[in-house]
């Protein structure tokens, strides 16, 4: 086989249609970004819809926002930012030729932080909302103290559950991807030359982080918490 010698001259993971590893790396990142642009438009529809309904029913949206617990939202933001850091460090470990156990350590840490985010979301926040009768379609109760705008509060919670739900679905998919990456890393598939799966999966993970960076202020913060600074 005449090709074997040429093939062995290239680093592992090199696809022959590319000039070199640098070009392959850039093509991979570009392709992932094209996918992420479709994701921007995917979430963008919900964000645009949210903007319209918030403008139409501002008092109800502010009231709904005050019914969410800012502490959970802020804690989850910190957890997700930490998971982005560990994801970046996993890629850094591969880039600098660290042992595969170091890459796996950061990948598992990222998964644990992602699972912690979902744990806080599902077992504390959503369960609490269900007990408080704030889930539209599952025994939602309009409270008399909400006044005239009370009928529009379920609309805010529809947005809340669809937006955080779609985000949570992306997190679950992300944890699945991280599982595959950890198995690949344990098989010694990554090195300084070839770490493209880590890089593009990292782009996906950071994108999901960015979606939450916008969901946190839009859902939890801009509801006028100063109005209830005295008591709660």
């Amino acid at each position, binding site marked *: 086989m005449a090709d074997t010698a040429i093939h062995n001259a290239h680093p592992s993971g090199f696809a022959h249609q590319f000039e070199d590893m640098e070009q392959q790396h850039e093509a991979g*990142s570009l392709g992932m970004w094209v996918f992420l642009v479709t994701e921007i438009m995917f979430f963008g529809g919900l964000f645009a819809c949210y903007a319209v309904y918030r403008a139409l029913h501002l008092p109800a949206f502010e009231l709904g926002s005050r019914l969410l617990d800012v502490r959970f939202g802020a804690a989850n933001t910190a957890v997700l930012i930490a998971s982005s850091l560990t994801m*970046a460090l996993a890629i850094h470990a591969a880039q600098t030729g660290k042992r595969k156990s170091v890459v796996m350590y950061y990948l598992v840490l990222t998964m644990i932080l992602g699972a912690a985010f979902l744990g806080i979301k599902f077992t504390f926040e959503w369960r609490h909302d269900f007990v408080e009768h704030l889930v539209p379609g599952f025994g939602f109760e309009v409270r008399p103290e909400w006044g005239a705008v009370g009928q529009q509060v379920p609309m805010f919670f529809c947005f809340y559950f669809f937006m955080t739900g779609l985000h949570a679905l992306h997190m679950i998919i992300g944890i699945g991807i991280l599982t595959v990456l950890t198995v690949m890393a344990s098989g010694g598939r990554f090195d300084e030359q070839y770490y493209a799966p880590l890089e593009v999966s990292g782009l996906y993970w*950071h994108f999901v982080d960015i979606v939450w960076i916008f969901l946190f202020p839009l859902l939890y913060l801009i509801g006028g918490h100063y109005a209830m600074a005295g008591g709660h």
Partner: protein
Amino acid sequence: MPGHVVSVRVYAGVFLALLALTGLTTWVSYFDLGPMNTVVALAIAVTKMLLVILFFMHVKYSSGLTRLVILAGFFWFAILVALTLSDELTRNWTPSPAPWSILLPLIRGLL
């Protein structure tokens, strides 16, 4: 080696800045700034997004082509929001003269 290696020091700095901005945006939300509450919250969110995109996602070190694709994506999203809101916020909402239910006897009569 393909790709740019960002130092751990830069990653740690970006991480701390993101945490500080999360604390800041939460703190500011407890003050009544009128419409500025939304502006400040979104400005901080955009700053955090830029930190993540530039450093965690390595766009500061990526090619012009990649940056163009990203900018085109955000531009398209801006069109979506701007055109939707320009319709929604400039509409002259016509008040309904009466609830539609006053037509029910008429409809029943026709049936």
